[in-house]
Each structure stands twice: as structure tokens, then as C-alpha cells.
């Protein structure tokens, strides 16, 4: 139900922003060449990401996040209905030996992280005595009303009404700030109003995650600072990738240049390529344990096949005219390799390296989820075990940012180092 509501809000913002931006703001933008194209539907080159859409999209995510977590960053009126907190009460009616008596239950509904004791209440008159209970938000609690009553359930007392409304075992009565269900054994169970917000246990508010970030930054997590966790993960990726490239690129070249190498390694590479590196984790742990060696070997294997295939297709992608031209310009085999084949294959190798880095980053996080002393994956795994959802979210965001950063760095390196990519 809440999910449908969130989706409706999301679609509403999407459509609303679309109309506002395209009909109102876009009128004022400059007319460049692309904006004058009349055929844009089907012309992919005329489709450019709308900057406004990008900004609003990100803000919307945070807006909905804040809305459904009761974030302090948003004014109160924008919040989804909050769960009830405070003191409320209801009356119950007990029937025993043909007589009826009313008593009041005072309920304190408190935030989950604040331990609160039930209020002291006057017992009142009659055989049913007043009760008091403390319940955490989003939880519910059995109210053992007959505990202090003069006639208990054992002696035939039966709750027959809540706030004057008749109730039977298994039935439910809505009252202010919650519902009361009479259990199958005849005990009232009070569930305070849950509202529409997510429980912080499942999704903390953005500012809580931010505060936790600062805290983890200053105090670290599980004996390691945040930078050490991320640094370990990055170190593993880089070490594994470099080893993979160191072996994979020459292997790919050999496969692209020699029948024997091609025949020998083709079955191995073609078989290993579709095996997801994640599937190798158990075997790697059995063989090398959960230490650094195992992780780096896993990442080495993840990068190896990708780099070998990239180098191989880099060699086979060389226009034969270039090789012929180099030979008739007097180049030796070694010179062909150095001045033609290697530079010609660099764009392919860079593409492979980008893919390999992405795969390695995903694999290292997965490997750390399984078993590690430190690392980004270990951080979110351990945090989830202790229900530190804020650290889990923080970890996911950092993993995403670093993965994106790696890809951007690789693209920049590519632009700088192989400007001739795609120009042959």
C-alpha cells in the first residue's frame, strides 16, 4: 500500500517536473543546432540528457527518502504520516460471574531506542483494576489486564468490550491512536498507529546516515577506519587487476599472433569467460583461505580472461592494410609488434580494462561479504548483522561512488592515452 503511494508520488513528480521544465523553463533556452532538429524521435544523437531532469531526479530520491523516514531536513508538513508517539488510553470491560466492570489501560508509545517504563496508575475501583504499559513505536504489546484484577481469566473473567465496543476473541477494535485485538486466549493486544513512515531499523533518515558517516569517519568501524576499509577493497582490486592484466594481455597477444597459443588457450579462455567470478569464491576460500592471497587470486582470475580476450580482439582488430604497410616499409616482426599491433590494440585493451575494473570491484565486495577482516563489503555485511542499517546504506553509497569514480578515471585515462580510439 505504502509502496503504491510512493510510486504514485514518484510518477507525479516525474510528470509534473516534465511539464514545468519543458513547457515553462525550456522556452527560455538557446536554440542550438540540435534543438532545431525536427526529427528527434528515433534520432538518438538528438537525445541529450535533460540537465533539469537529472537534478530533479536526484532531489526526488532524497525527497521521498526524507518524506518516508520523517527526515529533519524536510518541513513537517511534507512528512508521510508519522507513527504515533505519546500517551494514550483505552478502557476495557470485563465480565465475570454475570457482573461487568470497566478499567482503563494507559499506554506510553515511545521511540524504539528510548527505554521507557510504564506510568504508575491508580488501580481504581471495582474488580477490574487500571493497567499501564509501555510499547515501542511500530511494535505491539499484549496487555495482561487480569494480572492485577480481582477476578482473573482463570476464574472466568472475560474481556467483552473495548472503549464500550463489544469484542470477542480474535476480533479487532479500532481506537484512537491504534487498534486493539483480542487474542485467541482473551488478552487484549494493543498496536499503536504505525503511520506511513519506514521504521529507522529498516531505513534511517538521510541525516542519520550522514551523522553515522561522520561518526564512522572519526571512530572507524570494527577496528579499522573507514579509509582503511575502502583502501583494503581498492588495494585488492588494483592488485588483482594489475596481475590479471600483466598475465592476460601477453596471453591475449600470443593468442592473437600464434596458431598454437590460440588453439591451446581458446578452450580454456572460452570456458572460463562465462564462469562468474562469484562462483569461484567458495573454491578460492577452500584453497587459499579468507586472507589477502585468496582475494587477490580471485580478482586476478576475474580480470585475467577479460584482459586476455580484450588483447586478443585488439590484435585481430588490426586492419591488415596497416600490417602490410608496415612490412613494406621495412619493419621487422618486433617493430610491427611495437609500433603497429600494440598501439592498435590499446583502445580495445582500455575498454577491457574498464570492464575488468568494474567486474573486479563487484567481485571484491561480494568476496568481502562472504568472509573478510576488513573492506567495504565486510563493513556492510557486519553492519547488517547488527541491524546498523545506516552503515549498510552508507556502505552501499560509498561502493557506488567508488565504482563510478573508477570508471570515470579509466575513461579520462582513455581519452588522454588513446585519443585515436574509434578514429581508424
Amino acid at each position: 500500500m505504502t509502496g503504491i503511494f510512493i510510486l504514485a508520488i514518484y510518477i507525479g513528480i516525474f510528470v509534473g517536473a516534465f511539464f514545468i521544465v519543458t513547457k515553462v523553463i525550456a522556452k527560455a533556452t538557446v536554440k542550438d543546432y540540435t534543438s532545431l532538429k525536427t526529427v528527434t524521435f528515433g534520432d538518438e544523437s538528438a537525445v541529450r540528457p535533460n540537465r533539469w531532469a537529472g537534478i530533479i531526479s536526484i532531489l526526488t530520491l532524497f525527497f521521498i527518502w526524507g518524506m518516508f523516514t520523517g527526515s529533519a531536513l524536510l518541513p513537517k508538513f511534507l512528512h508521510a504520516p508519522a507513527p504515533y508517539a505519546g500517551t494514550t488510553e483505552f478502557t476495557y470491560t470485563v465480565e465475570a460471574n454475570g457482573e461487568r466492570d470497566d478499567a482503563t489501560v494507559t499506554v506510553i508509545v515511545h521511540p524504539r531506542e528510548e527505554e521507557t517504563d510504564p506510568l504508575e496508575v491508580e488501580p481504581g475501583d471495582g474488580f477490574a483494576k487500571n493497567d499501564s504499559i509501555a510499547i515501542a513505536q511500530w511494535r505491539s504489546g499484549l496487555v495482561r489486564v487480569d494480572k492485577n484484577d480481582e477476578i482473573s481469566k482463570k476464574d472466568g473473567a472475560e474481556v467483552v468490550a473495548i472503549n464500550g465496543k463489544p469484542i470477542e476473541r480474535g476480533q479487532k477494535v479500532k481506537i484512537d491512536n491504534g487498534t486493539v485485538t483480542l487474542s485467541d486466549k482473551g488478552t487484549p493486544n494493543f498496536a499503536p498507529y504505525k503511520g506511513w513512515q519506514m521504521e529507522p531499523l529498516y531505513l534511517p533518515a538521510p541525516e542519520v546516515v550522514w551523522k553515522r558517516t561522520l561518526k564512522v569517519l572519526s571512530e572507524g568501524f570494527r577496528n579499522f577506519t573507514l579509509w582503511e576499509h575502502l583502501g583494503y577493497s581498492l588495494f585488492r582490486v588494483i592488485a588483482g587487476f594489475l596481475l590479471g592484466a600483466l598475465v592476460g594481455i601477453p596471453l591475449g597477444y600470443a593468442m592473437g599472433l600464434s596458431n598454437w597459443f590460440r588453439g591451446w588457450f581458446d578452450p580454456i579462455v572460452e570456458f572460463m569467460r562465462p564462469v562468474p567470478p562469484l562462483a569461484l569464491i567458495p573454491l578460492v576460500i577452500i584453497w587459499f583461505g579468507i586472507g589477502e592471497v585468496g582475494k587477490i587470486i580471485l580478482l586476478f582470475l576475474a580480470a585475467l580472461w577479460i584482459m586476455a580476450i580484450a588483447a586478443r580482439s585488439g590484435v585481430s582488430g588490426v586492419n591488415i592494410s596497416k600490417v602490410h604497410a608496415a612490412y613494406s616499409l621495412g619493419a621487422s616482426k618486433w617493430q610491427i609488434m611495437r609500433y603497429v599491433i600494440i598501439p592498435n590494440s590499446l583502445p580495445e585493451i582500455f575498454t577491457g580494462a574498464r570492464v575488468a575494473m568494474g567486474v573486479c570491484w563487484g567481485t571484491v565486495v561480494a568476496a568481502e561479504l562472504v568472509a573478510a577482516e576488513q573492506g567495504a563489503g565486510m563493513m556492510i555485511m557486519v553492519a547488517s548483522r547488527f541491524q546498523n542499517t545506516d552503515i549498510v546504506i552508507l556502505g552501499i553509497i560509498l561502493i557506488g561512488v567508488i565504482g563510478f569514480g573508477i570508471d570515470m578515471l579509466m575513461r579520462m585515462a582513455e581519452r588522454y592515452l588513446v585519443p585515436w580510439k574509434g578514429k581508424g
Partner: protein
Amino acid sequence: MMTGLSIQDLSMRFELPNGGAVQALEGVSLDLKAGELMSVLGPSGCGKTTLLNIVAGFLAQTSGKLVLNGHEIHGPDAERGMVFQKGALFEWMSVRENVGFGPSMKGMPSAEKRETVDHLLDVVGLQDFKEKAVYELSGGMQQRVALARCLANDPDVILMDEPLGALDALTREKMQSLVLKLWKETGKTIILITHSVEEALLLGERLIVMAPRPGRIHKEYRLPFAELGVGADLREVKKHPDFGVKRDEILAMIWDMEEEIMGRTEDAA
């Protein structure tokens, strides 16, 4: 010792995977004197590119002999330079580095190399583009680089495989003049393959028309137009009374060959 290129009874036969075979060339014999400019015409499938690849040393003939300046040809060598239609420049190198590739491979001292490269880039009219990346140049300029790169190596024979085929008509005319100019200035032996009858007439002191199945020399001409065209307006050369006659004759000849191929294909079908 005789100078020039001698092609003696050259045959080339490809075995096909399905058990058949293609006789790409049969009994091709030619003698080219040093400094001769020969253009090669023929319908597709007549083996002209195969012939060029054998002379360049990229393919080994099944029989016959190739002799250049007294020694037999085996494999590619800097003595036989090649200019391709396109895609043969090294886009990871600047124009200067591309032209200097051959001298670099030989280990020519850098001062001398610089001089050679500068001179050749002046000759082909690219003095202002020396430090550009080749992919920044137009198609015509790229072919100028290819010509200069080939000449920088000072080969005895230059093999051109439709070097102007990918250019537009205007650029092509300019490049034809450039080829003639370079031929005259350097005195190289040149074999030029083309699909354009006019180009073959303009750029061939000698012109051979090849016929397909098996690939062979069908007819040979000796033409005055290349000499006339050096330093002159090629459009004027085309007005020469003999030019139109020769053009029509060769066009008809190739047309007949194409017809025959089509006919044979239809018979088979």
C-alpha cells in the same frame, strides 16, 4: 644486371575448402623497366589485387618467378612500397611520424630523417599539417600522407592499390596530377591498380587490361598521356583525340568481359 621488375609466367591457384579451386592468375608475364608507370585495369575478379599482393610479397605464387633488379622476390621488403586505398595510416602517430615510419625502422639518424620528412611533406603540400593527427585530415590529405610515407622509404617499386578510389572527383583530379608529378620527380617504377578507365589512361605509360577466370593479361597499351599530363592540366590531356578513342575501346572491352561473366553465372544458375 638488369634493372626493373620482371614477372615471369606467374600463376596463382587457391584451393577452396569445398574441394574446388580458383585459378586467380595464369601465365602472367611482364617486364617493367625502372621508372616505368603502369596502370592495371580489369573487371572485378580478374586477379589484379592478387597480382599486386604477390609483387608486394604478401602472397606466395604457386608457380612462376618474380625478379627485381636481378634478385628473386620473397616476402615483403622495403624495396617495394605500397599505397593502399585507405585505412593503412597509423592513427596513433602524427603526420610527421607516419611519414618518418620507414626511415625510423631503418634506424636513420633523426636529423636526416627530419630533413627527408620535411622535404616530402613540402612536396605533397602538407607542410602546415606536420604535427596533426592523421585522423584530423581529410581523405585526400590522408592519401598524400600515404604517398609521402611510401616515398620516404625510397623504394625501387611503388605498388598502388586503388590509391584514389575512396576520394571525391575533384580531390581525385588533384591527386592524379600529384601522382604524375611524383613519378616524374622521383623516377620510381609504379604499378597502379584502378577501376577508373580514365585514371588508368591518364596515369599509365603502359596500361594492361586483365581478363578474369583465369586472371590473365588480356591486352596491353603504350600511351602518351602520362607524359603529356606531367605538369599540365589533365582536363586538357583528356581532350587529346586519341584519349576518347582509347577510353571507349577499353570500356567496351571491359563491358564485354563483365557481360560474359554475368552470362556464365546465368548459365550456371
